[in-house]
């Protein structure tokens, strides 16, 4: 007959060999390996201050016949600490969900029980198949001033613990981040970026429960974000982008009236439109292509980037410089 035995880390454990007398000759094994007699007190197995590595199958055999007399599975673990509980409505006004976890593992099986009370009414929190540590509730009422009280109790063989959250219907509303954020350059506009996004698909009725949005953007080379709050619409044109600089852009959402901001969306990158690069020409080449000059003076081999509006590569700022200054400018741009 096999048993499971749960013991706390650090406890002293005594195992009896079934119904065998104290003075019976026995052999104990742990996971198939003989245990030294120094751990025995008669036929009892004594384990002092057990630790996690001592979890396993313990078997007791009668001395001469090697008949199995007792077997147990020792599980060393800890009682649960106070669980961490969170409740949130990302699909208002349909309902909300609560999820939980333990701050530290117990190393033995735990069971969780959740109760949700609204006023005097107990509500059913339906457990999700996945993830296992989550359940959801449908709102039966809206616009209530009565708070919800959610109590989570975690129990294992070594003890129990619980935590309680109390909140108003509207304080836990937090949408998921906006989806499908797209940022594109605007043709012929070196300082603009067009950003568009969609409402999170989990938000059930954006027409009746509109979301507002917060957009943040910065060039990759700077740490400071620019912020724009938008009360309607799912697009925005940035008009003050630095020409030619790659930008990182994110969007967050919030119900227009209640709750808190979502997490930031996945970041997207975009660079404003720049004009097509023209060929580099040197003064010497220009001189060769023109009609022969009577001057014998040869100008130094400098390179001019051509006229206003031109650029070399998509990352450069369009300017006119001599070679030395151009090199310095590139050095600054690509730090």
């Amino acid at each position, binding site marked *: 007959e096999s048993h499971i035995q749960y013991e706390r880390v650090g406890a002293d454990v005594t195992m009896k060999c079934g119904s065998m007398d104290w003075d019976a000759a026995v052999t104990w094994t742990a996971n198939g390996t003989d245990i030294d007699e120094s751990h025995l007190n008669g036929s009892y197995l004594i384990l002092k201050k057990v630790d996690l590595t001592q979890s396993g199958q313990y078997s007791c055999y009668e001395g001469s016949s090697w008949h199995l007399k007792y077997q147990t599975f020792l599980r060393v673990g800890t009682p649960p600490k106070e669980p961490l509980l969170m409740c949130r409505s990302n699909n208002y006004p349909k309902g909300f969900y609560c999820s939980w976890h333990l701050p530290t593992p117990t190393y033995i099986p735990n069971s969780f029980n959740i109760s949700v009370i609204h006023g005097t009414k107990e509500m059913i929190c339906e457990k999700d198949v996945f993830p296992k540590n989550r359940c959801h509730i449908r709102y039966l009422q809206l*616009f209530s001033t009565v708070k919800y009280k959610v109590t989570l109790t975690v129990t294992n063989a070594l003890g129990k613990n619980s935590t309680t959250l109390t909140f108003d219907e509207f304080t836990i509303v937090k949408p998921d981040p906006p989806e499908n954020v797209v940022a594109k350059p605007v043709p012929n506009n070196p300082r603009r970026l067009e950003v568009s996004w969609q409402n999170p698909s989990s938000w059930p009725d954006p027409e009746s*429960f509109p979301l507002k949005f917060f957009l943040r953007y910065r060039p990759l080379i700077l740490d400071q974000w620019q912020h724009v709050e938008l009360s309607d619409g799912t697009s925005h044109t940035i008009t003050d982008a630095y020409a030619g600089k790659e930008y990182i852009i994110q969007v967050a959402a919030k119900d227009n009236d209640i709750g808190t901001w979502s997490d930031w969306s996945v970041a997207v990158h975009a660079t404003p439109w720049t004009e097509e690069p023209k060929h580099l020409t040197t003064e010497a080449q220009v001189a060769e292509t023109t009609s022969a000059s009577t001057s014998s003076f040869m100008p130094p081999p400098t390179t001019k980037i051509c006229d206003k509006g031109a650029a070399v590569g998509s990352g450069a700022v369009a300017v006119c410089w001599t070679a030395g200054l151009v090199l310095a400018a590139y050095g600054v741009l690509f730090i």
Partner: protein
Amino acid sequence: MAAADSPSAALRHRDLCSRGIRLAGKMRLDVINLLDTYVERQGLDASASVAAVEGVPVAAVERWDEQTGTQRLLENLVAYRAFRALLAQMLEEQREQLGEADTTLGRALAAVLLQVSAFTYHLEELLRLESRGPPGEEGAEPPPPPPVSLFERKLRGLRVLRELAQWALRSTRDLRQLAKASPGSGSVPSPPNSP
């Protein structure tokens, strides 16, 4: 009066809904600020639970999404008429209790009362547009007499303001639902463009 489904009625409907949404939004913000002031001046605990009080309209509603436009308007109207009377009572109590000592609270109460009155009128206009006309107030019950003890009056005031804040939020949502539907369609809500 224009027919409920005429273009001018539709425009008026849309205009009243959007203005109503802005009114309700502003009112809610002012009520929330008033709540903070009230709790502080009356020496109350902001997190205190206050049981339902007779005569204070409760904003909580089941099956909110199944309500018709007319139901929404009527329930809102009944509620705001009650709040108008309750706030007037609170203002009078506050003047008796504190005299001119606390004009901040008095002014804030008076400002919210004005907004509630304006919103009540707005709702009546919307009901007229629905071709229903607002119900008269003659048959309406007066607010119950205020509690005798000062502490109970304070708690009732807290309840009034909390429910009013929730009503203002509900009204915003109700008017958005109304804005989706055409005027005069007092039947059970149906998807747009359905008969």
